[in-house]
């Protein structure tokens, strides 16, 4: 990411949505920004971290999203502006704090950015985090373009400070990673000195009157939003079809009406703020159209709100036709697209719509038979491949139908073929050891299967600790495997407590996994997952012991990080004389079963060949080749 504090005001630049949010926060005078990495939100904090020194602000990667928001709230109470950014899952982690914070209120502007991931391109779900605005009665802003990301971020801080409550800014994966023209504004000259007036106290009691205060703030926010002009109408005075849309869907609707040739018949009510809904504006436009289509991702957030408003005013408005999730004109799952909105519009308006020549479509579709899917998997040299290999071998040899409780990180791909599909359950950060803890207590009910919980090093700190304490306390019987690759690899190699470095590149204090285990009284062993034999022996023994929580730390630096640090020690080769390829009793053991992309099955010769561009030289495959055909020689010796 770049230092966005150096951009010249007034000069249009190509900027990513996430970078524009970061710039907006700087222009709003943010003093403390905190986050836990998670695609598609990670670039916001990374950009701020890279700008922190020149902007004179404090930026941190926190252990989890709840802590991030609490840190940002501290800035607010000290009279400064704070921001926490996260992906949709993070909102759930922070939710308990949010639902109390909204009652106690805030002082300096406090903004929560959630970047949702419709279609779950880089997530375990496609949750619509806008629910938090309803649950916690918070104003919710939804930009559609990078330029709006900047503008609405600034507005969010203003709004927060005016009403004394948290404001939510909601991005989307497409928007977060979209680049478009953005014209930065000026940065603030000076920021106040932090100070918490000891007479100011922030808590939620007495609950009922404080609840009323919270509602009053939301009502006040509604007035401010209406005045800010972030919701606006674009189209004929009395449209045949009114589209009410937010986020990227606003742009899809705009394009869709051109695509179906209905520009003059369709009006769009652009909702830059979707909570509280601007009732006056909505009523005004409902009165002028009889058909209403909703375009939003993913849940029917606006749809249900507008219908609720309509129900209160049905006598004056008369009968209307609503098109959206309930009628199938907006899919209840997955991303929206201009084509989907166009198809809905064409259907409602009775217009012809085809994507292209049907004969072409049929031919293009038939040709897809040639296109093999491109499945994601562990990188060449990834320590997780070796780790899952050992788990697969040992659990099979153990023979008691062992269960692997998974967690969130690159190693979630243990559910896929490159992880030998060896993971039985994956949910959210830290849920793996929690589920394992429960399984390990079913021994008294006759549950005899061994249990392994896998957590990455970053996940270990994020949410695994309470589950581990629980397991230790209650004497749950399982094996915790910490897949320590010394990086938050999935999201872009951010530092975490175990690495000791911080978001701003300064030295923090490394928090040691072993010390935590020792402090909890847990027996632990550190292993190198590249050493398959030692790893498998230790894992097998750990599974046989039983009776409590045991920890194995599989420690090996992420292959991508290692590549940047001088690479791996081995130069690999396949001896074609020894390789038995297809004819071997093993039927292409390395390419079919082990599945490292550095090993390629050559259809022509029926043998394995090594792709020297892809292979990084981790040496693990040499240990699994039954014919001894894969050789590892030290790189130095051959260089």
């Amino acid at each position, binding site marked *: 990411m770049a230092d966005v504090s150096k951009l010249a005001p007034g000069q249009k630049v190509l900027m990513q949505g996430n970078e524009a949010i970061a710039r907006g926060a700087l222009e709003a005078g943010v003093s403390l920004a905190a986050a836990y990495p998670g695609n598609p939100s990670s670039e916001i904090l990374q950009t701020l971290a890279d700008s922190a020194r020149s902007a004179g602000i404090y930026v941190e990667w926190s252990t989890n999203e709840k802590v991030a928001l609490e840190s940002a709230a501290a800035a607010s109470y000290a009279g400064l502006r704070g921001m926490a950014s996260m992906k949709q899952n993070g909102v759930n982690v922070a939710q308990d704090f949010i639902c109390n914070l909204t009652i106690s209120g805030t002082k300096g502007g406090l903004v929560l950015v959630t970047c949702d991931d419709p279609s779950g391109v*880089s997530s375990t779900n496609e949750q619509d985090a806008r629910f938090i605005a309803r649950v916690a009665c918070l104003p919710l802003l939804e930009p559609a373009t990078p330029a709006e990301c900047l503008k609405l971020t600034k507005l969010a801080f203003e709004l927060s400070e005016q009403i004394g409550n948290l404001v939510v800014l909601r991005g989307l994966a497409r928007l977060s990673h979209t680049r478009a023209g953005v014209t930065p504004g000026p940065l603030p000259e000076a920021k106040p000195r932090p100070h918490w007036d000891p007479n100011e106290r922030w808590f939620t009691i007495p609950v009922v009157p404080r609840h009323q205060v919270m509602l009053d703030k939301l009502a006040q926010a509604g007035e401010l939003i209406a005045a800010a002009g972030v919701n606006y109408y674009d189209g004929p005075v009395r449209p045949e079809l009114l589209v009410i849309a937010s986020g990227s869907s606003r742009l899809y609707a705009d394009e869709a009406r051109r695509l179906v040739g209905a520009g003059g018949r369709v009006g769009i009510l652009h909702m830059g703020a979707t909570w509280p809904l601007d009732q006056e504006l909505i009523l005004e436009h409902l009165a002028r159209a009889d058909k209403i289509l909703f375009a939003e991702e993913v849940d029917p957030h606006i749809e249900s709100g507008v219908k609720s408003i309509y129900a209160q005013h049905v006598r004056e408005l008369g009968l209307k036709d609503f098109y959206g999730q309930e009628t199938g004109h907006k899919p209840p799952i997955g991303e929206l697209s201009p084509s989907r909105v166009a198809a809905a519009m064409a259907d409602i308006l009775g217009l012809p719509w085809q994507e292209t020549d049907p004969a072409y*479509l049929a031919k293009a579709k038939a040709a897809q038979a040639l296109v093999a899917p491109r499945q994601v998997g562990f990188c060449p040299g990834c320590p997780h491949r070796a780790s899952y290999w050992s788990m697969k071998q040992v659990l099979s040899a153990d023979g008691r139908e062992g269960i692997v409780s998974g967690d969130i990180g690159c190693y979630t791909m243990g559910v896929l073929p490159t992880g030998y599909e060896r993971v039985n359950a994956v949910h959210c950060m830290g849920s793996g050891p929690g589920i394992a803890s429960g399984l390990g207590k079913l021994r008294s009910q006759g549950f005899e299967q061994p249990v392994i919980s896998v957590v990455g090093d970053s996940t270990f700190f994020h949410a695994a600790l309470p589950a581990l304490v629980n397991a230790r306390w209650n004497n749950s019987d399982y094996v915790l495997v910490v897949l320590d690759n010394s990086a938050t690899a999935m999201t872009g190699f951010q530092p975490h407590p175990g690495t000791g470095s911080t978001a701003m590149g300064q030295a923090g204090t490394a928090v040691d996994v072993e010390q935590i285990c020792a402090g909890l009284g847990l027996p632990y062993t550190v292993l190198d997952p590249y050493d398959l034999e030692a790893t498998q022996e230790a894992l097998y023994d750990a599974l046989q012991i039983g009776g409590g929580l045991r920890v194995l730390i599989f420690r090996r630096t992420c292959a991508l990080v290692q590549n940047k640090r001088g690479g791996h020690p081995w130069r690999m080769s396949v001896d074609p004389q020894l390789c038995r390829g297809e004819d071997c009793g093993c039927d*292409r053991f390395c390419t079919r079963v082990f599945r490292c992309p550095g090993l390629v099955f050559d259809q022509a010769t029926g043998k394995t060949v090594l792709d020297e561009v892809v292979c990084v030289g981790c040496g693990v495959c040499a240990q699994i080749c039954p014919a001894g055909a894969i050789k590892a020689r030290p790189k130095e010796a051959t260089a």
Partner: protein
Amino acid sequence: MKALKYDPLDIVVTGVGGQGNVLASQVLGLALLTAGYEVTVGETYGLSQRGGSVTSQVRVSSGPVLGPMMPDHRATAIVSLEPLEALRLLGVYGHPGVVVLTNDRPLRPLGVLAGEQLYPEPAELRATLESLCAKLYWLPATAAALELGNHILANVVLLGALCGLDLLPIGAAEVEAALGDMFPESKMALNREALAKGLALVRAA
């Protein structure tokens, strides 16, 4: 500002994680923005470094700001760093009038490496691509990049090739300037050579 031959001008840039198509789309977007057009570059990534397909959409217009996703089967051109990816995306964005520029070097999916799926023969792949577009440019971009000493330059070679077609309202000079904004001068000599190689490839085609 030159009028757009296609408005909107929708260019899909695709490839496999790590091939540099996100960078290529950024360079293209920056060059077009600098030239005064409305530009939206939509990207999807997340697991890009782990062998997945990665697609960017460079959307250019003289008028309204466009969304990050283009309508299906409406692309002006598909620029692909990997030939199978070009075919994959024709299934989403193709139409009889689309122009396809693709690198000819295959990158086999994991399932093919594992011997479970087949990668089409180059001749079959090429013929299929040809049958699904108005014009196919089947270019040895990786080979050209390797002549310059680094396979990663294939993305810049393809950008050069794109500049040689009558699609963009800008030329290689503007693309070179955008590269210059993103790379130190020390790397520009190679980038210039790569652009020139791409131009030459498409002129010879």
